[in-house]
């Protein structure tokens, strides 16, 4: 279960990443952020973002046009 949820639906690159970063900054290590996005580019971008920043991408899934990412704060 996520500690916080970010609704980034309808936003285009790079806003989902910028808003994700902003949310993560306010969270503590081990907490989980759930991100909802509709930008298809976010599949590749969230992975790259997590690889670079050391935060762990726990899961990604999609339901219709909405992609859901779960990120564990490093």
């Amino acid at each position, binding site marked *: 279960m996520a500690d916080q949820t970010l609704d980034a639906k*309808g936003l*285009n690159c*790079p806003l989902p*990443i910028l808003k994700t*970063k902003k949310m993560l900054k306010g969270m503590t290590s081990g907490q989980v952020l759930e991100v909802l996005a509709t930008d298809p580019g976010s599949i590749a971008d969230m992975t790259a973002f997590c690889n*670079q*920043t050391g935060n762990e991408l726990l899961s990604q899934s999609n339901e219709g046009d909405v992609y859901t990412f779960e990120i564990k704060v490093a």
Partner: protein
Amino acid sequence: MLDASENTKKMTIIVTKGTLDWAYPPFILGTTAAAMDLDVTMFFTFYGLQLLKKDLDLKVSTLGNPAMEMPMGGMHMSMPNIVSMVPGVDRMATTMMKNLIKKKGVASIEDLREAAVESDVKIIGCQMTLDLFELDRKDLIEEMEIGGAATWMEEAAKSDINLYI
């Protein structure tokens, strides 16, 4: 970056263009790099300095943009160089692009610039350009530091990525 360590990756971008369309690549890459924990310096020179005005009024030009196409009713309308001679065409293209930006959930340049400032992107304005075009420091954002080629060079020599846009 407050926790800048020896291992922090660095990037610089030289920003030379001041139209609405060309404002996007440097600000998107700069803010994204900062979000990915890179230490970012953006050096604004020549027309790029227009992007640091407190009041932004950016436009697109069809001139020198022969590949420009605007989506319209499921089709694409091409914007050959020659149409820029027609009065009002650049204004129309600017309005069309601003509408698309809103409709597609793309950030405004104002928002991206604010994000850059918030994420501690170092913003350097070129002193020579200020002199050359008689730009008033007071019309440009306060977060801008003044510098020159050597200022950029010092950062660039320490950086992993240096881009010229």
